[in-house]
């Protein structure tokens, strides 16, 4: 319908070739970078919130006692005490074999046999609270343990990971800032492209104007031509970004790192990523329209 306004048999009022040029590529690159930055931000956000949920209620109790028999006894008594406390969702005494496996990468196997003495590894009790591990909850546990296991040290798991969380949140903010900057750069690029196209097509626009064309008729032609460019560029950009995201995702999955696994994108994230080129196209069309209308207003 709109196409029919000025053309028949595919003839264009404003030639496509002139409007095209670098525009779709600039938009493709912008969209690709935006989608990647956004995906990184979303993945980090997911990782932070899922790790938080997992760790928030987590409390670690270490029994720091070199003598194995006393350590074992204190650990058993600590478990019994905590079990009776309110607000506990679960608890687990980490078995010795698991602890050995944990330190093995650092100290190697058979250390005990080699040195003739066992290395005093603290006993670990993993406690899961029903609520978050607030200082109040921690001190209640500490108080309860003092008489039965004096060598116990109580820590909220989130404390250990706070620097990691902070780093992830900073990265997330960085990603958001990048997305905002890229949107600005995209607008600027479209503005320049629209101006250039307006300049090269000024004669055509003037003629259409003098033949009784309205501002919005002319603007519509530009808007449409920019829209095609942006949509094409956006699709290419999205495809590029998806290739990058999927292959990066596979790499991270290969690492088997728990946090990154939890950073996988959920369906609403993918939807958001797919919206980026659509928004870029809309942005390009609106920018083109406003630029053209502004320039036309200066003509009689």
């Amino acid at each position, binding site marked *: 319908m709109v196409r029919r306004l*000025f053309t028949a048999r595919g003839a264009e*009022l404003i030639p496509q070739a002139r409007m095209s040029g670098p525009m779709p590529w600039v938009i493709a690159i912008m969209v690709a970078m935006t989608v990647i930055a956004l995906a990184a931000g979303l993945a980090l956000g997911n990782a932070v919130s899922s790790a938080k949920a997992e760790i928030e209620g987590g409390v670690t109790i270490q029994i720091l006692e070199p003598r194995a028999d006393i350590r074992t006894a204190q650990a058993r008594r600590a478990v019994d005490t905590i079990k009776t406390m309110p607000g506990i969702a679960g608890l687990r005494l980490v078995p010795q074999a698991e602890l050995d496996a944990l330190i093995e990468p650092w100290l190697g196997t058979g250390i005990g046999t080699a040195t003739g003495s066992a290395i005093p590894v603290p006993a670990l009790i993993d406690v899961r609270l029903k609520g978050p591990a607030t200082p109040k909850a921690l001190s209640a546990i500490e108080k309860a343990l003092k008489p039965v296991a004096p060598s116990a040290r109580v820590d909220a798991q989130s404390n250990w990971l706070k620097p990691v969380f902070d780093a992830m949140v900073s990265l997330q903010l960085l990603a958001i800032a990048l997305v905002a900057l890229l949107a600005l750069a995209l607008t600027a690029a479209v503005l320049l492209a629209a101006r250039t196209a307006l300049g090269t097509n000024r004669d055509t626009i003037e*003629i259409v*104007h*003098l*033949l*009784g064309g309205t501002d919005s008729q002319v603007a519509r032609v530009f808007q449409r031509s920019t829209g095609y460019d942006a949509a094409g560029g956006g699709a290419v950009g999205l495809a590029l970004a998806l290739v990058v995201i999927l292959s990066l995702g596979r790499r991270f999955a290969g690492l088997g790192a728990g946090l990154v696994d939890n950073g996988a994108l959920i369906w609403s994230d993918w939807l958001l990523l797919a919206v980026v080129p659509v928004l870029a196209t809309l942005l390009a069309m609106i920018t083109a329209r406003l630029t053209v209308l502004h320039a036309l*207003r200066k003509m009689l």
Partner: protein
Amino acid sequence: MTADGEIIHFDNVGLRYGTEREVLSDLSFTLFPGRFYFLTGASGAGKTSLLKLLYLAQRPSRGAIRMFGTDAITMPRSRLPQLRRRIGVVFQDFRLIPHLSAFDNVALPLRVAGHREEDLAGPVRDILDWVGLSDRIGARPPTLSGGEQQRVAIARAVIARPAMLVADEPTGNVDPDMSLKLIRLFEMLNRQGTTVVVATHDLDLLRKVPDSLIMRLDRGRLSDPTGALRYPPRKTP
């Protein structure tokens, strides 16, 4: 004081480009519907400038202009397209759109005015046939000769049956035969009610339209040697 049946009224109009001296001064005249006007004058006298005021490509620096009963100075910008659609223009430099075929160039005024595609093919072909370009219907302006381009420009100007036709040196690039043919086309439109204003420095042309009224520009000032402008005679049936 609207004169009865006037189509254009200029009252003490002046035009200057930028800060230069006035290229048009003290223009006061009325154009009546259905008449055939010639605008003559030496090169640089201001013919094109006056026509630009007529086809709303330029605002005057001073004075009042009324067109089709509307004050052309104070009317809102949004009314311009409607007025322009009632005016057909043959530009001195043709101003065809280079990447559109002759057909699409001629169809442009109809498309701009919202005519349906199936309604415009016939008239566009007819008019191109009339100006002798039926075999160049798909050609783009850069591949046409000067005379052919001029005929496309004329076809585009008349295709929408404008109330007023404004032509700036429309016979400048065509041979005498075609020149006469084009003037006959203008006369035919004029007989159907179109007011015609043709700027030319070709005095032979004036004699070819016996009923025409003559305006003469001399360094931006208007004189009417026939007295036709001051006392517009009724159009003879």
